[in-house]
């Protein structure tokens, strides 16, 4: 090959650059769209898990004065006076409820104390509070006298915080400033454990049911395989809610399965199946099974059956031949399917919410709970970030070993 002169080289480089820009130009519209409509919202949510300026906005003066407090005993009387004045103002604007909620998060059980005190302070004269509000406050409820409360309030006043991550991991800050396990019930670590456990069980079931089926289908003649594949693809294309509805109809107390079992005399009492973890596992295995079968099937169809036949005709026993020769060749499909099923089931929400009952709830459901029922959005964001971290890690593994764009869609 003859060497290019510099000009040609430059030209070639320019052409190359133009091509790259052209390719990039095709992708830009979607990239911008996804960044704005999808990535930015999630980013904003992550930010919410560490940025929470509500307390700082509600009682700014108290917090400024608390800065001078050394954490020994109660804060200065002047600080408490200021606090009562600010609390009264909040009560008048109907914002004391919000402060009560914040205090309650910082120091459990404070909600009622703040609310009842605010209601009483509302009627007092502001001048009196300015001079002697602190005394009045301490007499309203004995919990105002606990120094730890003020320590936690001071912490909650910081606009940036990692406290929600601590809560999400069942940790808390002790009065000495160290991190320790939460004294009250441990909820979230347990729930993460349960979620992973259930996702694992579901993945295992999918593999156990999916592998033989895929093998059977892959070794059928084309026509028959295609026909039977429809039975795999139809559920895949059927609405998630339809499939969940079906399981409710099947599993409920006087549903189809119970009527059948009692009809043939196998059981005399209806079995409790709906609203249990069992229901979650069964329904989700059903929903996710196609995600396992499809990649397995496509890998298995690519394997020449003569390998196995050759091995056996050379005298290998069927089972060792299968384990040593066939199975390793199907591993890419199996791992692709298993990872996908695991990823999807870890973050599942709808089916556990509808069929899982109290014990069949997963981490997504508690996130929804904090979003919709307890309105603790920051905690929901922190729990969500942890879940997202886990999913992205799995996704990275998936992308490395399978390739993100190789997801099988039928």
């Amino acid at each position: 090959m003859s060497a290019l002169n510099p000009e040609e080289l430059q030209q070639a480089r320019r052409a190359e650059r133009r091509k790259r820009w052209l390719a990039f130009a095709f992708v830009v519209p979607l990239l911008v769209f996804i960044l704005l409509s999808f990535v930015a919202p999630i980013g904003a949510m992550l930010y919410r898990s560490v940025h929470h300026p509500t307390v700082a906005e509600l009682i700014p003066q108290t917090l400024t004065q608390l800065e001078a407090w050394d954490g020994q005993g109660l804060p200065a009387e002047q600080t408490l006076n200021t606090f009562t004045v600010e609390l009264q103002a909040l009560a008048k604007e109907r914002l004391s409820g919000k402060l009560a909620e914040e205090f309650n998060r910082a120091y459990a059980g404070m909600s009622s104390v703040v609310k009842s005190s605010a209601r009483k302070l509302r009627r007092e004269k502001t001048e009196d509070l300015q001079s002697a509000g602190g005394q009045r406050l301490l007499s309203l409820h004995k919990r105002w006298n606990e120094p730890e409360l003020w320590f936690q309030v001071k912490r909650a006043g910081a606009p940036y915080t990692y406290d929600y991550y601590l809560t999400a991991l069942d940790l808390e800050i002790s009065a000495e400033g160290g991190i320790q396990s939460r004294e009250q019930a441990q909820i979230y670590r347990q729930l993460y454990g349960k979620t992973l456990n259930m996702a694992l069980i579901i993945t295992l079931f999918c593999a156990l049911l999916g592998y033989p089926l895929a093998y059977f289908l892959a070794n059928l003649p084309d026509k028959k395989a295609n026909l039977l594949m429809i039975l795999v693809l139809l559920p895949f294309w059927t609405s998630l809610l339809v499939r969940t509805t079906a399981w409710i109809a099947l599993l409920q107390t006087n549903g189809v399965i119970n009527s059948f079992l009692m009809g043939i005399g196998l059981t005399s009492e209806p079995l409790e199946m709906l609203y249990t973890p069992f229901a979650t596992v069964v329904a989700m295995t059903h929903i996710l099974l196609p995600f396992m079968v499809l990649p397995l099937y496509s890998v298995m169809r690519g394997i020449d059956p003569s390998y196995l036949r050759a091995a056996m005709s050379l005298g290998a026993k069927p089972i060792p031949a299968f384990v040593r020769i066939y199975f390793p060749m199907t591993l890419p499909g199996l791992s692709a399917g298993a990872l996908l099923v695991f990823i999807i089931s870890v973050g599942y929400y709808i089916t556990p919410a509808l069929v899982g009952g109290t014990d069949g709830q997963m981490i997504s459901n508690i996130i929804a709970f904090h979003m919709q029922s307890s309105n603790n959005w920051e905690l929901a964001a922190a729990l969500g970030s942890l879940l997202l971290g886990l999913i992205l890690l799995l996704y990275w593994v998936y992308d490395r070993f399978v390739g993100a764009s190789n997801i099988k869609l039928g």
Partner: protein
Amino acid sequence: MAHPAYYGLWHKLGSALLKGSSYVVLLFLILPILVIVPLSFNAEPFFTFTEGMLRFDPDAYSLRWYEQIFTDPKWLLSIKNSFIIGLFSTLLATVLGTCAAIGLARDEMPGRRFITALLLSPMIVPLIITAAGMFFFYSKFNLAATYTGIVIAHAALGTPFVIITVTATLAGFDMSLVRAALNLGAAPLKVFFDVIMPLIRPGVISGALFAFITSFDEVVVILFMAGPQQRTIPRQMFSGLREQINPTILAVATLLIVLSVILLLTLEWLRRRSQHMRGIEN
């Protein structure tokens, strides 16, 4: 199937077992869905087979739940919404997704692997996280509880499917065809519609179908973001399943099953056509 001589008795037994268990798994996949269909014609407001139904008594069957769907303004609104939102988000997702897939298919695309992973992530990130994030973000821009906001959200969720299906058809695509057409002086737009499009059309259509079904079946984002006016079929089913279980939901479910059968058949037809066009014998 005739077995070669070296197949022993155990092996025959094994393959019979395999066949049997495979059919059981297939039944597990399909039966729960089929069970819904007869139940939706139940004359009683129950979710199970009544004695009359098992005796095939015609009086035990009725169309009352279907009638209820089409006379209830809430169901009608949600049907209309599902189609409107599905249609527009599909349009948006298909256009953006197809375009991006063409760019991503080119070897000279910078940062291809990362960008592909990023663009496909809406399919992987748990919906609850997506929905929670969108709820705050879209509220800030007054887009929550609007059709526009929901169409955008659903389009974002649908694009990964378009990228995957179009990329798959582009895998066998010969880029020199495009170069040849351009060299012959064809306008780029004409090249796109006359050269690229016919070849990737099956991928585009099946991507669009996926995008449509994604929007049509989506409920988590709707639960968080939509107002009463943007209620869709799955949203209506969700609240029905949570609060008042009655066979109207089964009737809706049956209609949705019919829809998915139609979609599946379309897709199967497309797949054969695509293989045919690319000369792969089935």
